């Protein structure tokens, strides 16, 4: 009994520490974003602001091209989320359910592309887009992320758990394969679709590396890039930067809280059984 209790305490202690490690920096950023004093890193560092202000948030909106960056980010994220959901479901369906020549080979190639680190692909991707004259354009920002292999894999795995009888009943009822996909498989795959949507949204919204490479004028920046551009060698307005960062992280936070259930389900259903 006693041993169990100690175990429990230990368990909570470890969880507490882990939580603190993850959430601590976020809380500190939050505190900085309300600080009126710009020299937040002067010794001794204060964990809470001496003078509290909302000016940093106002300034994010007024002094920066925040609106433009927000528009860019929303555009890229929305388009990529929608296309990822659609295309990964479509491809997942084909890999899971249609019999065509070379299915295994193509899928194997797709999967093996995951083994190549993304960084290595940056330069070739840049060169290709340059050939198409897409550098520093929305097309350049969006097109490389229209669909992702992981999402296709996830959808394929999910579709494979749907009984074959269901598809055959639909065939007998008179469905074409596209209709089976659209009217039978999609409606019953909401958890998997939501998982793909959330992963994509989050990845796209926070994406930093690719926008850095593909854009060079301020008006094409997305939010993370815009924020990063505030950090200069000489002077960084930390409270302003933190206020912007907090704002950026809000949508992901909200989505996570609202769709938490789907998140967990989606992860579970990416396993062998749905």
């Amino acid at each position, binding site marked *: 009994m006693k041993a169990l209790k100690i175990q429990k305490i230990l368990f909570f202690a470890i969880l507490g520490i882990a939580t603190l490690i993850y959430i601590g920096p976020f809380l500190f950023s939050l505190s900085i974003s309300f600080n009126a004093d710009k020299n937040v890193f002067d010794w001794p560092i204060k964990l809470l602001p001496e003078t509290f202000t909302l000016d940093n948030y106002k300034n994010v909106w007024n002094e920066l091209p925040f609106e433009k960056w927000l528009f860019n980010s929303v555009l890229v994220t929305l388009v990529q989320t929608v296309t990822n959901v659609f295309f990964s479901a479509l491809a997942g369906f084909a890999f899971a359910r249609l019999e065509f020549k070379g299915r295994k080979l193509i899928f194997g190639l797709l999967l093996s592309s995951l083994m190549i680190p993304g960084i290595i692909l940056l330069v070739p991707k840049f060169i290709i887009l340059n050939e198409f004259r897409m550098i520093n354009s929305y097309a350049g920002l969006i097109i490389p992320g229209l669909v992702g292999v992981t999402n296709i894999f996830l959808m394929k795995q999910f579709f494979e758990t749907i*009984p074959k*009888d*269901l598809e*055959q*009943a*639909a*065939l*007998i*009822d*008179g*469905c074409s394969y596209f*209709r089976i996909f659209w009217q*039978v498989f999609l*409606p*019953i795959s909401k958890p998997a679709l939501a998982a793909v949507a959330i992963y994509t949204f989050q990845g796209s919204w926070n994406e930093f590396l690719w926008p850095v490479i593909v854009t060079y004028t301020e008006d094409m920046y997305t939010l993370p890039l815009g924020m990063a551009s505030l950090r200069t060698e000489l002077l960084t307005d930390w409270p302003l930067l933190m206020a912007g960062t907090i704002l950026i992280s809000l949508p992901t936070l909200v989505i996570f809280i609202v769709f938490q259930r789907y998140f967990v389900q989606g992860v579970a259903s990416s396993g062998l059984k749905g």
Partner: protein
Amino acid sequence: MATIQIENLEKVYPGAERATIQKANLSIQDKEFVVLVGPSGCGKSTLLRMIAGLEEITSGELQIDGGRMNELSPKDRDIAMVFQNYALYPHMTVFDNMAFGLKLRKTPKQEIKHKVEHAAKILDITHLLDRRPKDMSGGQRQRVAIGRSIVRDPKVFLFDEPLSNLDAKLRVQMRAEIKKLHRQLDATIVYVTHDQIEAMTMGDRIVVLKDGIVQQFDSPMNLFNNPQNKFVAGFIGSPSMNFIEGKIVMQKEATFKSKDLQFAVPKDLRPCLKPYEGKNVVFGFRPEYIYDKAVEKGKRLSESMEIEVEALEPIGSETFVYFHFSGNPDHSFCFRSNSQLAYAVGDKITIGVDIDRLRFFEADTEKRIM
């Protein structure tokens, strides 16, 4: 009118060593209730799915109503199918599940409503029309699945083990209902099951399949009384037919001789067995046709056989008596006795088999001799 003609139908799955269905030939009549029965893995579903168009036909021809079907897709064959796991669309209500096929065929709304409600009434599921599959019991789901097939008014109904997920009592009830439905709909039905009792009680005619080969296509009573080979004889009937392997030898008269027992072949059978003299044969006799010689006086019974009772299984109306012949305690057999006769384990009894019910099979080909 919907006949089904199956000619030399074959199925070889890609990469498989042998054919899953081998040269099947069946001629199914209009409005007939045909049951495909056989042990699990014998190819019943494969054959049914070839009729449905869900499985490609490797060779041979399938005709429904005289028209070649081989190349038609399932939706153009005018068939409906009921699956073992119901296969209802989980996101649709019962009404929509039943209406889906009609909608796809551009049936007018009013007519859809009428047809679905009519089918729901026949199946007694009107009160479920707004429910979703997950809120219903297995029996209710299976009714909906049947409903979905009847609204389309197809030429042929295909059932693939529709009752095997239901409990025993419901299964018996649904059996009767499907039979009734068959009379109401006046439709041709092909019904798959691995349960020989289901097959016997439901089918007008039964196809017995084994390893992808049609063993016999006949009425239930003919399968029971005149099985064409040892497999059918053993598969149909419960408890199964008893088999003893032995030889026909000429002593004073033709005699069946085995480790378990030997007896003189009755006069009427001798001409038939003559060619098998000296050869291995299998003697088969059903538990139903064994009689206690001390009790049964009216029947023409075979020579006396001495047995010893090993175990008893009373089921109320009768008792299954498990026994061995005095010659060989290692091999057990079964006999169905009147439950009035109180046997005990260890009892030694003298039995005889109804002479008209003695069966002999060739040992190597398993074909019936007589």
